[in-house]
């Protein structure tokens, strides 16, 4: 091997399609703590940890064979002492002496690995936090509370969008059946602005509740909601409306006693 390549500040290794190592430079042997005779002729896999062997067989080699090259592939090389050297590998296929060979260049990346480990663990934490948050939001977005036997309360808090209104309606109708509700209070005191689409959805929900044999009371309708109702031309026929939640509860109590 060319002395320049032999001592170049990168690892170099060439292997045949059956994995036999054909060439290896001094730099790489230094990292591996092995003599040339140990590595030459043995399988490339012998300088990889077990997980890396699977990766070599299932990803690295097929990629190299199918596309003729592989770039910026992360690997760990295993030294004779059993420690791992994290490297980035570039590889290309070539033909020498009538046979296909796979030439690989390795650059160690110890510093970078630490950095990437941190990124990965931050990413995992973020994904987990997101998942917990999503669950919590979904739970919070569709609470159906039993006030007393036969009476349910659905407090709508924050911005009500189409998807959330869908979830809410489904949860409410399920609860009306499961808990044999006779009266349902949908309280909008904590609701923020909603569009006419959602308003129509709410009035549909109220109609559906009535179809299932329960009364529906809307409470806590603020000025902006009232304006949207009027603008959307939605008439809340058959739906009881009370100004405050307290008034709604009084109504529900009367209905429950009947």
């Amino acid at each position, binding site marked *: 091997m060319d002395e320049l390549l032999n001592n170049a500040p990168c690892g170099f290794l060439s292997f045949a399609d*059956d994995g036999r190592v054909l060439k290896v430079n001094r730099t790489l042997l230094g990292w591996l703590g092995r003599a040339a005779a140990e590595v030459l002729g043995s399988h490339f896999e012998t300088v990889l940890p077990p997980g890396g062997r699977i990766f070599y067989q299932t990803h690295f*080699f097929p990629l190299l*064979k199918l596309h003729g090259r592989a770039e910026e592939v992360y690997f760990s090389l295993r030294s004779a002492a059993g420690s791992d050297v994290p490297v980035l590998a570039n590889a290309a296929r070539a033909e020498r002496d009538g046979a296909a060979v796979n030439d690989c260049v390795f650059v160690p990346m110890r510093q970078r690995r630490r950095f990437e480990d941190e990124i990965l663990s931050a990413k995992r934490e973020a994904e987990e936090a997101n998942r917990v948050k999503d669950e919590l939001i979904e739970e919070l977005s569709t609470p159906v509370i039993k006030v007393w036997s036969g009476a349910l309360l659905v407090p709508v808090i924050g911005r009500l969008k189409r998807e959330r209104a869908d979830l809410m309606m489904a949860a409410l109708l399920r609860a009306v059946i499961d808990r044999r509700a006779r009266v349902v209070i949908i309280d909008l005191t904590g609701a923020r602005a909603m569009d006419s689409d959602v308003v129509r959805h709410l009035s549909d929900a109220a109609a559906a509740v009535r179809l299932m044999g329960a009364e529906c009371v809307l409470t806590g309708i603020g000025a902006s909601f009232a304006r949207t109702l009027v603008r959307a031309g939605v008439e809340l026929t058959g739906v009881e409306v009370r100004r405050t939640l307290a008034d709604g509860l009084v109504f529900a109590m009367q209905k429950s006693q009947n």
Partner: protein
Amino acid sequence: MSSDILRRNNVKVSGRGTRPILFAHGFGCDQNMWRYVAPEFEDDYRVVLFDYVGSGKSDMSAYDPKKYSTLGGYAEDVLDICEALRLRDVVFVGHSVSGVVGMLASIREPESFSRLVLVGPSPCYINDPPDYRGGFERADIEGLLDLMDKNYIGWASFLAPVVVKNPERPEIARELEESFCSTDPRVARRFAEATFLADNRGDLARVRVPSLIMQCSDDAIAPPEVGEYLSRHLPGSTLRVLEATGHCPHMTHPEETVRVIREYLGAEVSRQARP
């Protein structure tokens, strides 16, 4: 429905024969893995190639994390394809983990399959001392998952949105595809877990379709002991040790792979009596 499945699994049918031969790729790649082997069967067979949902050019929107977290989900893909193409007496050729997938599919619907050809199969990759040596410890598999995470770093946050947002620029997707055969890193990771943490030794005795175990010499993923274990426990199986080394004889030694499959299919194998 059937055309949905064919699109979902990127099913490709070719060949001039009538008897179906279905090639199933292993973990880490897609149907391209068969490009040196499958064409050799086109004269005599109806050749069917596909990608599992989550791999290759399958429909990613059909990916169900729960379904594909066990090998049973992948077996469903195989059965769906058989049904969509109304395949009977299929010769199933599965590489690596697809060997087990084929076994599971054949247990569910033995009538659909005539032979199973298992290329580098393993019913369990993890050692279970003292009686079973799969070749790996759990920590080794963690090492693989770590390696995959590192190689896919930034994919989800950076490249995925780029691809999704640039359907008019297919070269970006192609570049990605070339960088790794399978696409979404979370999908690849789940496939790796489903593959390497599975233990299907208990299913072997339930297989009723005759099978060929193609054991490579010097295969780090499926060592010779695993091939021997399989031939002892898989009813109606024939063990062939290949001269090919490594885990991908269909890529490294396609001629031998084709020859051995042909020899097996040519030989009469008495079908196990069904219970």
